[in-house]
């Protein structure tokens, strides 16, 4: 963790007055709201969250066992900030941007207290390549040079947004550490490769635009039925065991964003380890580069201090905004926003604030909307365009979507991917419920799909939605009278719907091929089912009984479309075979 811009506030240190779990009060601390302080003899990091008279309340980001009244509190006079610069990709941080690898070197396998580590490596040198010349005029936010940060990403060095800007008087390519000055301006401002930014404040942008390009996820149900835009927001609520984390991991792996910021907020340690182990071995399906080289991980597991859990989503989105400023499309996954809300609740109840619904603080809705509003498709202040897409998992207690976190999230986000325990129980994965889920981006993304996949894409999607809707209605009757009591055409519709569900909506995240499905393949697979539908109804009209149609041996091959590497040939052969075999019946 690092300091933000120097301010001239008087820094007065205080004395601890009381300790109760992560909440400490101190007297005589001349701090402002949200200033970072170091608490006690061990120097535990904390943040001022309430000031009342001479008494400041501090949330401490570390375990407070054996901290006692009377110990000192050191005021830094600066708000909680992140250090932004090359080296963040391929890294894994805790909730206050301490690199976990460095912490392991310093204190072993268990997280001890009072250890500070800078968010980016101050020793490492990077090759800086100027983008402007001496004498050029630069404004805040402008890109002055680039640094090859990882195999796939060039890091843009920018004039910090809070600078005044001016004419470049000195700039030279070469190897520098992040603290060395790479550009000098005529007004005396010096630009280093890193800059600091307070996490609770959105980085400035010129304008927010309506997104028109999808964030392609490689997941059929998402790309096909409920697409999210680059710069969009989505919520994935679901009870435990319904596959939130697998869905988030799939998005982090396959979404066609330039940068992925993955925030593990109050979740399982082993899951984060899985990400750390898996990602370096996986390749980006588009660029072929290792996935880790575009990923920044923030891991604040459920047993790590609760206050750091509250801050980790802010740390994540600030890093995301920084890469957005460079003109990149960034996808941020937060798993899970409920844990973040619960951290707020926990701190709030320790402060003895008046609780709102279900004990959550009254400012829950405001905090959630503030967070999601930081996502979007932006014109940056330097003229580039970039986006931050925010996808938050929600873990509603008892799987009940009427609880405050889910409800307040739904009021803000435009994509709702509802996970369903029933589907998960029958191992229908991803267990996204097609009746309850929605995307409000479909209309604005349709032009893209028409141009880049197929003119017919929106119609085919609508066809699938209609069949699934009809199936839903028919199922109610089937529950009462059995399938065989239905007329033949309805039985056939059920059969078609079954293939949509089993061979198209279902997707095996653990199968090498099926785990990623391009929009073209998604479209073609649905096309094969539509072919079956059309041919089957023709056959039915010609008097072929529905049992015979079901018995066509080509039809079950629909179920294996997803796992085909060479899908184009497979699907076109399959369509031919289905047509031939059905037509042979009449």
């Amino acid at each position, binding site marked *: 963790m690092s300091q933000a811009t120097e301010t001239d506030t008087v820094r007065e240190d205080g004395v601890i007055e009381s300790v109760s779990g992560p909440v400490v009060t101190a007297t005589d601390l001349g701090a402002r709201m949200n200033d970072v302080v170091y608490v006690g003899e061990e120097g535990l990091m904390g943040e001022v969250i309430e000031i009342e008279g001479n008494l400041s309340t501090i949330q401490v980001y570390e375990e407070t066992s054996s901290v006692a009244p009377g110990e000192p509190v050191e005021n830094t006079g600066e708000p909680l900030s992140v250090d932004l610069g090359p080296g963040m990709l391929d890294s894994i941080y805790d909730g206050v941007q301490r690199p976990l*690898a460095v912490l392991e070197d310093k204190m072993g396998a268990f997280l001890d207290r009072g250890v500070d580590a800078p968010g980016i490596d101050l020793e490492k040198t990077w090759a800086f390549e100027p983008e402007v010349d001496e004498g050029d005029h630069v404004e805040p936010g402008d890109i002055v040079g680039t640094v090859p940060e990882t195999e796939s990403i060039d890091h843009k060095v920018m004039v910090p947004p809070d600078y005044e800007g001016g004419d470049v008087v000195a700039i030279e390519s070469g190897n520098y550490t992040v603290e060395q000055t790479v550009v000098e301006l005529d007004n005396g401002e010096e630009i280093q490769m890193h800059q600091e930014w307070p996490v609770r404040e959105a980085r400035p942008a010129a304008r927010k635009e309506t997104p028109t390009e999808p964030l392609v996820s490689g997941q059929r149900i998402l790309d096909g039925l409920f697409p999210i835009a680059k710069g969009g927001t989505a919520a994935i609520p679901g009870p435990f065991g319904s596959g939130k984390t697998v869905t988030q991991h799939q998005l982090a792996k396959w979404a066609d964003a330039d940068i992925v910021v993955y925030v593990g907020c109050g979740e399982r340690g082993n899951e984060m380890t899985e990400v750390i182990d898996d990602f370096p071995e996986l390749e980006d399906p588009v660029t072929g580069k290792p996935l880790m080289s575009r990923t920044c991980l923030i891991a604040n597991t459920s*047993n790590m201090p609760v206050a750091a859990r509250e801050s980790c989503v802010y740390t994540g989105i600030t890093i995301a905004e920084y890469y957005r400023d460079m003109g990149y499309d960034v996808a941020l996954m937060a798993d899970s926003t409920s844990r973040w809300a619960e951290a707020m609740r926990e701190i709030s109840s320790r402060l003895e604030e008046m609780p709102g619904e*279900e004990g959550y603080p009254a400012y829950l809705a405001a905090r959630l909307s503030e967070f999601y509003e930081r996502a979007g498709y932006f014109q940056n202040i330097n003229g580039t365009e970039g986006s931050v897409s925010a996808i938050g998992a929600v873990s509603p207690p008892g799987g009940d979507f009427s609880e405050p976190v889910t409800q307040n999230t739904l009021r803000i986000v435009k994509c709702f991917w509802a996970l369903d325990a029933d589907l998960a129980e029958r191992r229908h994965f991803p267990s996204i419920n097609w009746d309850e889920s929605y995307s409000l981006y479909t209309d604005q993304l349709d032009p893209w799909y028409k141009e880049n996949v197929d003119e017919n894409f929106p119609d085919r999607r609508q066809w699938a939605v209609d069949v699934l809707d009809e199936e839903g209605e028919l199922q109610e009757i089937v529950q009462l009278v059995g399938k065989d009591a239905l007329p033949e055409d309805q039985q056939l519709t059920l059969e078609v719907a079954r293939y949509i569900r089993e061979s198209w909506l279902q997707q095996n995240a653990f199968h090498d091929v099926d785990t990623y499905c391009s929009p073209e393949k998604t479209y073609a697979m649905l096309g094969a089912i539509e072919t079956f539908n059309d041919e089957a109804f023709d056959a039915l009209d010609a008097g072929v009984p529905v049992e015979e149609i079901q018995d066509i041996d080509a039809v079950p091959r629909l179920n294996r479309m997803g796992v085909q590497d060479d899908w184009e040939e497979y699907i076109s052969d399959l369509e031919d075979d289905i047509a031939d075999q059905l037509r042979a019946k009449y």
Partner: protein
Amino acid sequence: MKEYQTITEISGPLVFAEVDESIGYDEIVEIETEQGETLRGQVLESSDGLVAIQVFEGTEGIDRNASVRFLGETMKMPVTEDLLGRVLDGTGQPIDGGPEIVPDDRHDIVGAAINPYAREYPQEFIQTGVSAIDGMNTLIRGQKLPIFSGSGLPHNDLALQIARQATVPEEEADGDDEEGSEFAVIFGAMGITQEEANEFMDDFERTGALERSVVFMNLADDPAVERTVTPRMALTTAEYLAFEKDYHVLVILTDMTNYCEALREIGAAREEVPGRRGYPGYMYTDLAQLYERAGRIEGREGSVTQIPILTMPGDDDTHPIPDLTGYITEGQIYIDRDLNSQGIEPPINVLPSLSRLMDDGIGEGFTREDHADVSDQMYAAYAEGEDLRDLVNIVGREALSDRDNKYLDFADAFETEFVQQGFDTNRDIDDTLDLGWDLLGMLPEEELNRIDEEFIERYYPEDDETETAEEVAAD
């Protein structure tokens, strides 16, 4: 060490005392009553001049003249390999009449979080010998897999069966690994009855398991507050044995519901703002600090695997205790009341059960190549059969198609043959999967849409075998 006779308030398990020095948060406190009894407690809140103390043994017998001593350190567990074979009470004092414990070291019971970067992803399959677990919800070394049960269900029998039968198959074969890392069981009982305790102890003694076990006993009539310490004692011991002495430790914690009740009791006594159903708002964090103490660490031999048991009040899994647990643990095993009344042993309902670490710990090199597909297919088929049962109740079996009838037969056979095995039968993974194939043989080959063609060719039972399976199923 200063002694205070400054108690100002006694309320439930809490004692408030005035002090004139600074007392650390979480410090251990001794309270001596006028009768000479010494009680132990912990600082819950410390402010200038006043501390709130939570007394483990309950506040009975304390009056305002009792003297309070602050020991200046947080709660520690004396750890040594000699703890194996010992029976301790809920605060770590021996109650088996054995010799005094000479500790190698004393560890803070709160335990620091494992750095996720230092963890090793759990991938070693533990064979429990229970088909419903091995085949469908595989347990992995370093996993935390709770048993969700209800009052009066045989969760203890299942826990004992797992403790007895758990092995890692490969290691058995080469043998030398066994010496390097031995297997140990830590049993943490919170608020269980004497009778249940006896059941566990008898089984441990009968099978000789006691010598590789450490038992922590907080019984139903022991003070509730003590229960908040018991699992931390148990897990501290487990971490010591696993990460310093290279043991593979299986920790059984029962009953987590009692633990959470104790948390609620303390929360209420402190007049905290309650969360759902009166449980404290920090219960998620508190439970996570227990459950997350399972796992493996890179470069260390041992592992901590947790099987917490909880009884769901009213069999309701949306109750805060199972709900929060499910969000932290890596899956769950459901014990089902209906299956139990049908006499299925163990009565595991596999449909809502789940093992999150299963996918990476099974398949070629771990269990068998076809494991994932077989398990998926059985899940789907059983779920379909279950659905059809509702329909049968309305329209009768005759009204169903041939295909539907096959699924119904499958669901029945799945329960009576695959899940049913008795608490004393130990099935290895090959037996479990072969049995799975026998049952899948009841379905037509083309219905097996989750299984790779290659495996169907290799394992799908020939026609005559299918007949046998059906006959067996009909029995």
